[in-house]
């Protein structure tokens, strides 16, 4: 590429004022659509994922249904945990403390909570309400679910014989903090518990069906005798959860489930949205392609005579080609940069206009996720590509005909 080619390309764009403005506007609008779509789809994905991710474990270790093969392995020395299937068909993790300590040292794991999970019924007066029992170590109460944030009444200091219940369950039972309710476990064991706190963690199911107890209390009620039924973890990179789960399964001989596999519907929804977004992005790039190609093709025809003159001055066909190629490049670059700015402003404006009284936003648009540099790079590539045909046509113009036949 030679300097004068850039100069001529820029001059051509500048001097075709209105045409250049129109095609720049066309490219920019395409990129506003592109970046807005990206900001919307990505924002939606983040919001959906956050909603799901915030209150669930990312990886859960559980006993396998069958005895792990590791125990049968000839040199099974690497088995860290012994898993027993009790006579009553209940799998549990014994000796979980060293495992938890070891997992805590892994940098990709940000929070960890050994838990017991079981079922039971709350009884109060006439009422009998089924609940899922989760026993957690009081110190790790908020490792998976942020109770501090979701607490409506009371506190989260979970002691022996205390329970945290959801706001719907509290209503149905007709209890408030400090009051008592009787819990009967699936094993037939009963204990009267004091409601220490009432939470609202968003999901109606959780608010109605979950009860959180301290680990020891739950172990006693569920007759687990010091064992836990699962180890729940949060990880720093949620999308790396499946890989981590696979690794942990291999390491521990336990079954490892990741949140992505457990949330097929979320994955499907995200994928469907992504596809829609991609389609719109592709269309916006196609309009840019067609627009730039037609404008430059017209320019090549309109500038026939000038191309002839340039050729007579010893401008090579390659230079003519590059002059038009560069116009495509600049149209793409300038137009899409404008469009990226416009897209960002548009997202901001929409957020401003739809902001709720409480400061949250109704639209899931996230202006930070507009994929601006990708949009600019793709649009510039598209516009440069679109210029190939016009550039060739311009380079092929016969200088003699162009000069002699007006």
């Amino acid at each position: 590429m030679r300097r004068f080619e850039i100069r001529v390309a820029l001059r051509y764009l500048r001097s075709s004022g209105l045409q250049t403005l129109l095609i720049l506007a066309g490219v920019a609008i395409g990129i506003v659509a592109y970046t807005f779509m990206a900001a919307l789809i990505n924002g939606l994905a983040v919001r959906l994922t956050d909603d799901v991710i915030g209150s669930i474990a990312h990886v859960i270790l559980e006993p396998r249904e069958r005895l792990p093969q590791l125990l049968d392995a000839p040199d099974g020395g690497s088995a860290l945990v012994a898993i027993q299937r009790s006579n009553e068909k209940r799998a549990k993790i014994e000796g979980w403390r060293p495992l938890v300590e070891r997992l805590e040292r892994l940098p990709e794991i940000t929070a960890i909570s050994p838990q017991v999970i079981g079922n039971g019924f709350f009884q109060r007066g006439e009422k009998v309400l089924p609940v899922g029992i989760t026993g957690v170590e009081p110190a790790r109460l908020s490792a998976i679910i942020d109770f501090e944030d979701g607490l409506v009444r009371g506190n989260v200091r979970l002691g022996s014989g205390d329970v945290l219940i959801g706001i719907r369950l509290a209503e149905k039972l007709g209890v408030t903090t400090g009051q008592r309710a009787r819990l009967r476990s699936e094993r037939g064991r009963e204990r009267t518990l004091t409601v220490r706190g009432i939470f609202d963690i968003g999901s109606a199911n959780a608010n109605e069906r979950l009860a959180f107890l301290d680990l020891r209390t739950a172990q006693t009620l569920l007759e687990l005798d010091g064992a836990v039924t699962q180890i729940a973890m949060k990880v720093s990179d949620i999308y790396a959860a499946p890989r981590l789960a696979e690794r942990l399964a291999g390491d521990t001989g336990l079954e490892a489930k990741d949140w992505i596999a457990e949330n097929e519907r979320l994955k499907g929804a995200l994928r469907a949205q992504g596809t829609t977004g991609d389609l719109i992005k592709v269309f916006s790039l196609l309009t840019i392609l067609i627009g730039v190609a037609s404008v430059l093709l017209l320019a090549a025809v309109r500038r026939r005579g000038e191309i002839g003159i340039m050729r007579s001055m010893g401008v090579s066909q390659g230079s003519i080609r590059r002059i038009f190629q560069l116009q495509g490049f600049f149209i793409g670059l300038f137009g899409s940069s404008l469009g990226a700015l416009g897209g960002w402003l548009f997202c901001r404006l929409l957020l401003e206009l739809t902001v709720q009284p409480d400061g949250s936003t109704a639209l899931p648009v996230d202006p930070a996720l507009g994929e601006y540099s990708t949009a600019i790079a793709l649009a510039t590539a598209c516009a440069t590509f679109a210029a190939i045909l016009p550039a060739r046509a311009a380079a092929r113009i016969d200088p003699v005909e162009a000069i002699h036949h007006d």
Partner: protein
Amino acid sequence: MTNGATESLVTVRDLVKTYHSDEIETRVLKGLDLELEGGGFVALMGPSGSGKSTLLTILGTLLRPTSGSLRIAGEEIVDMPEKNLTAFRNRTLGFVFQFHHLLPDFTALENVLFPAWVAKGGETRAARAHAEELLARVGLSDRARYLSTRLSGGQKQRVAMARALVNRPQLVLADEPTGNLDRDASMRLIDLMREVSHEEHTCFLISTHDADIAARCDRTIHIVDGRIANV
């Protein structure tokens, strides 16, 4: 910059050009021979349709002859690949056309500079100084920053002439350069060309119908029936 006494600047031998269009064959040049010496100031005359433009275009290496040989500045032109021709044009030749004078989106000075940009890839200080000097030479220093579209016909042709000269070519081909100008502007342009030709030892070949213009040239050649008559 003069060629040795042994070789002319331009040597044309047995040049034939036949146009084919719509199955009609037009033989325009029929075995034309021509020699031009470096620094010459030569008029090319002939009635309309006699092949003046065709000859100038072939000499300008923009059009390939049907047959015959052509040497310019010691180079065989006929078989030269397009790439080399492009550079050769830029270095050795200058054009002044009747129409399509200048690039409309550039100023007078930029138009003059353009062949120098092409030669060097971009603008150099020396080229700029030379272009300004040439503009002064054709009396248009005060129009240097005007867009070329804002110049009169005579001014445009003088800018075109300055442009043809900027790379110090050995041969300037002017195809009816005064065709669109009034008498005064025509004579002014030709006188300028003549001065420059003599001072810079640049050969000019100027096609024209105008006997007054031919009279101001050092030599006049006529195309008659596809050949040079009476050299």
